[in-house]
């Protein structure tokens, strides 16, 4: 391999800190388990006039789905908490995700429409920043509405904030839908710009590709 193209420490920089990479992949696994088992639980009493195909659900039947959901939730929660605390207290969120201004958003939309969006690894454009912020907020609401459904008596004030038990079910469902949409867009963009993939494993990107 040409020296220029190797990912040695000399000509690369770390764009994704180790904690972000580790929590990203644990989160990917935890979300996969939570969503697939959540669909299993949804199918037992659908909110709307459709069910998720059993082939994409986890658990085999309701009891299995619940077992997976209420086991994986601890992984999701502990991992998510570590990520959010890291993001807040190291300044990672502030550096990576802020600011997002209407002007920068308009600029990013215009660049996207003209196919001139810069793909500098390690720096997010305003649309990406907004998407990641929304995904984090959805994740927080997912956990809160989940707690409201799980403990509508012990945590009844939280449940009341979501409009009661049935309201919390709807919020839980729509936050899931938003996150699934995020995942679809996220994976589509990784496929379209595949050089973003390896740095999420190694943490490193070539200096020439970094802003």
């Amino acid at each position, binding site marked *: 391999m040409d020296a220029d193209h190797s990912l040695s420490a000399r000509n690369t920089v770390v764009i994704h800190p180790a904690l972000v990479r580790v929590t990203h992949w644990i989160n990917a*696994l935890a979300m*996969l*388990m939570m969503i*697939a088992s959540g669909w299993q*639980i*949804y199918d*037992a*009493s659908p*909110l709307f006039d459709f069910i998720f195909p059993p*082939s*994409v*659900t*986890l*658990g*085999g*039947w*309701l*009891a*299995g789905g*619940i*077992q*997976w959901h*209420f*086991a994986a939730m*601890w992984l999701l929660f502990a991992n998510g908490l570590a990520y959010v605390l890291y993001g807040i207290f190291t300044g990672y969120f502030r550096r990576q995700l802020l600011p997002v201004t209407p002007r920068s958003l308009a600029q990013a939309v215009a660049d996207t429409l003209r196919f001139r969006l810069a793909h500098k690894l390690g720096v997010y454009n305003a649309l990406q920043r907004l998407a990641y912020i929304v995904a984090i907020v959805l994740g927080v609401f997912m956990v809160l509405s989940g707690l409201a459904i799980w*403990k*509508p*008596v*012990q945590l*009844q004030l939280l449940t009341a904030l979501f409009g009661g*038990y*049935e309201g919390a*079910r709807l919020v839980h469902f729509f936050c899931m839908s938003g996150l699934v949409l995020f995942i679809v867009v996220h994976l589509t963009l990784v496929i379209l710009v595949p050089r973003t993939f390896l740095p999420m494993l190694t943490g490193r990107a070539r200096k020439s590709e970094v802003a």
Partner: protein
Amino acid sequence: MKRRPSIDRNLLEPQGQFSREIQLLERRLFLRQSLSLGALGLLSGCEVTSASSMQTVLNAMSRWNDGVQGALFSKTTLAPTYPESAITKPFPFNAYYGVDDVRIVPAEGYQLELAGLIRDRAPWTLQQLNALPQESQVTRLICVEGWSAIGKWGGVRFSTFLEKIGADTSAKYVGFKCADDYYSSIDMATALHPQTLLALRYGDAVLPPEYGFPMKLRMPTKLGFKNPKHIMAMFVTNTYPGGYWEDQGYNWFSGL
């Protein structure tokens, strides 16, 4: 909390058929879960042969969640109550069988059998139970499937009854055996909760067969399947008694 899939022998009726049924259920459960694990096996590269070790982990997590829920449970926090105008009509029927198979328990000659760690194990007639102080509640029943419905139940506060019969309230579990071969068990803290009701009425009428005549244990602090209907016998014990759905993999505590 120590768990054994056994049932207190001195408390229950002939065991043979019962434990055979449990064995069959366990087999069915294992088959179902083996099927379902294919999905995760594909993405993690695990062999499906690790299904039983995965199931061990899931069971352990369910036990852990029993403990967490026991710790979260407050003896004094009351479930929200609703005005009678909020009652769901018609209130949905739900059981492990269809509405056509509802058990009809004759009122005449009915006696609630008591067993286990109880001082006075004399059986109770409906007349005796109706003579105890009565109260009612309009609360939300939440099913493990996700749906919920608001209903009105009336009857005897369960803690009053436990006191009356001299139940050992330092014991861990209260178990129930039902006329429809259903069985379940609850923790003592929930048994003593002020909203836990030995329900003899639905609405303002005698509990109809589809809602569990002659009596149902109504707990607005637990999922619907934890509220046994057609109760024929109850017992107090320190040996984990399990339950019809619990033995198939549903979480035992299932608190709200």
